[in-house]
């Protein structure tokens, strides 16, 4: 089922959590809402689920306006950030809940419920934990139970609020891959909220980057990472060096005294050399070198006294024989230029 969000605005007092947001989520895709905290991503997700009400705007499922439907009627699967498992029910009872509360006419038989829950338990690899209570499970297990519970009612869309937010790094990695696999199997339209750009880029088919209640850019992970539409997106997705500069006849010059343009360069798109080349370069002095890891990280200070981060391959580093406190030239291989006005 596709989701269309049209002109959604939501205020909390004076604070605009969402400001006239439009978003299209195609059928069967896994979409990430990515943004810093306070960007409105969770509010948008809750509005899609019917857990929160927009001040204006509509939400459509398959082109049908469902803004007036309650959460109960929308048939969405919602996975809460802190799981919201029913603490007095076992894992089995939690997963079966959505089926058991159906009106008698639509309620599956006890065997059907059992079969369905067991199938889901296999899917989340917790067959042996069915009789346990949520408090006896680890965070990662609770998260999977929450997911199975949401899937049990065969929702038309699956919404996940910071699904891996409260897990530690390793469990997070595993669950991420598992979610991707799961989506490839069941192909249910899914939206998940995250503040972790790596997570969004790795898992999602499409990423919607949000900032201050607006959507900055929607696109494939490749799109948003390599062709950011705004300085915010560039800044938010990965480490970046910021310079000031000017553009003359299509050539970009780094010039700290200029104020017309903001220039962004990712650390791995900066070249270190002993000789200048091309029109765009500057001088710097290396201050700190960290060669542990796949990439060598160099911190340097520019001629105008600002810090700059460069990443280069081990091969390049060894070829250069770079040492600390050495004067070098830094040459950007690719610069993203944004005009310095308002939203740039």
């Amino acid at each position, binding site marked *: 089922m596709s989701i269309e969000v049209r002109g959604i605005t939501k205020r909390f007092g004076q604070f605009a959590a969402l400001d006239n947001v439009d978003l299209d989520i195609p059928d069967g895709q896994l979409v990430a809402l990515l943004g810093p905290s306070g960007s409105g991503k969770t509010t948008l997700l809750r509005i899609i689920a*019917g857990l929160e009400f927009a001040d204006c705007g509509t939400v459509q499922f398959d082109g049908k306006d469902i803004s007036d439907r309650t959460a109960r009627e929308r048939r969405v699967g919602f996975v809460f950030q802190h799981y919201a498992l029913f603490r007095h029910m076992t894992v089995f009872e939690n997963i079966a809940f959505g089926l058991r509360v159906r009106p008698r006419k639509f309620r599956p038989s006890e065997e059907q419920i059992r079969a369905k829950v067991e199938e889901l338990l296999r899917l989340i690899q917790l067959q042996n934990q069915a009789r346990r209570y949520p*408090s006896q499970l680890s965070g990662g297990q609770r998260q999977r139970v929450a997911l199975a519970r949401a899937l049990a009612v065969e929702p038309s869309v699956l919404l996940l609020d910071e699904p891996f937010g409260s897990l530690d790094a390793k469990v997070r990695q595993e669950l991420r891959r598992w979610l991707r696999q799961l989506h490839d199997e069941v192909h249910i339209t899914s939206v998940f909220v995250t503040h972790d750009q790596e997570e969004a880029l790795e898992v999602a088919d499409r990423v919607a980057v949000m900032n201050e209640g607006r959507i900055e850019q929607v696109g494939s992970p490749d799109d948003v990472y390599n062709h950011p539409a705004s300085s915010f997106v560039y800044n938010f997705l990965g480490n970046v060096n910021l310079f000031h500069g000017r553009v003359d006849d299509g050539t970009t010059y780094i010039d700290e005294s200029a104020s017309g343009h903001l220039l962004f360069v990712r650390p791995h798109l900066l070249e270190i050399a002993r000789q200048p080349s091309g029109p765009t370069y500057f001088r710097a002095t290396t201050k700190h070198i960290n060669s542990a890891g796949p990439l060598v990280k160099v911190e340097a200070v520019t001629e105008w006294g600002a810090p700059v981060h460069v990443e280069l391959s081990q091969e390049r580093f060894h070829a250069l024989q770079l040492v600390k406190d050495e004067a070098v030239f830094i040459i950007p291989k690719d610069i993203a230029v944004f005009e310095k006005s308002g939203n740039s």
Partner: protein
Amino acid sequence: MAGSISSTIRSVPASGFVASKATSEPAIVRWLLIATAVLFLGVFLFLPLAVVFFTAFHKGVAGYLRAFQDPDTLAAIRLTLLAAGIAVPLNMVFGVAAAWAIGKFEFVGKSLLITLIDLPFSVSPVVSGLIYVLLFGLQGLLGPWLIAHGIRIIFAVPGIVLATIFVTFPFVARELLPMIQAQGNDEEEAALTLGASGWQTFFKVTLPNIKWALLYGVILCNARAMGEFGAVSVVSGHIRGLTDTMPLHIEILYNDYQFVSAFSVASLLALLALLTLVVKSVGEWQSRRQLADQAAGEAKESQ
């Protein structure tokens, strides 16, 4: 590591404090303090409790049982059961409704509402009785109209029930509110997205989570309802066998120098009080265990 240890201590404050040398007192000071506390509690709590049962059984079990052969005593017990039987369920329904409205929703005037609910706590029991006399009594606002229609409230059972409801009004609400607030709305929202109706959500999700608080609130409310003295004393009229509740009957027996009978009836109410304390302790133990379980789960997660 250090963070997780200190947080487990915080979540189990009463039993989890591990004193080190730098933060503990010399043994003599410690035992002196313990002895003072135990002596204070012994004199002020244990002795009065002990004297109730001691005097009740002063003339043996037969003497104790004889107290309950008096028809006036039995009538008093019946009236007390009736008053509590009406007051407690009403206050329970009110408590659940108030806790739901206040704990689950944001609206204007919430703290004023909480203050108003607490009002009966801050009013002297004698004044609590007085207000009903002023409303329904002979010289009261509605008194003349009630007399004309032959309805008796003051110096009759309805007055006793009303006064009992008033004094025990906030107990269930007050007991549930912190519990309902602490639990947030997540589980209810989850239930609704899974297709549960409002009542299903309440009975299958909310109620099981607050059952211990509800039980304690009801038991405490019941103990206070059965034991209320000041307010009921004002509205009752002290008609033996008709408008005497257990506490009022205890007063009459005591003033008649029938000490064994007075304390025998009193021992029933004291037992009720002890039962209330047991339920509270068990409830606390339950919620502490739940906390510990949760902490264990979180520890597992960070492994």
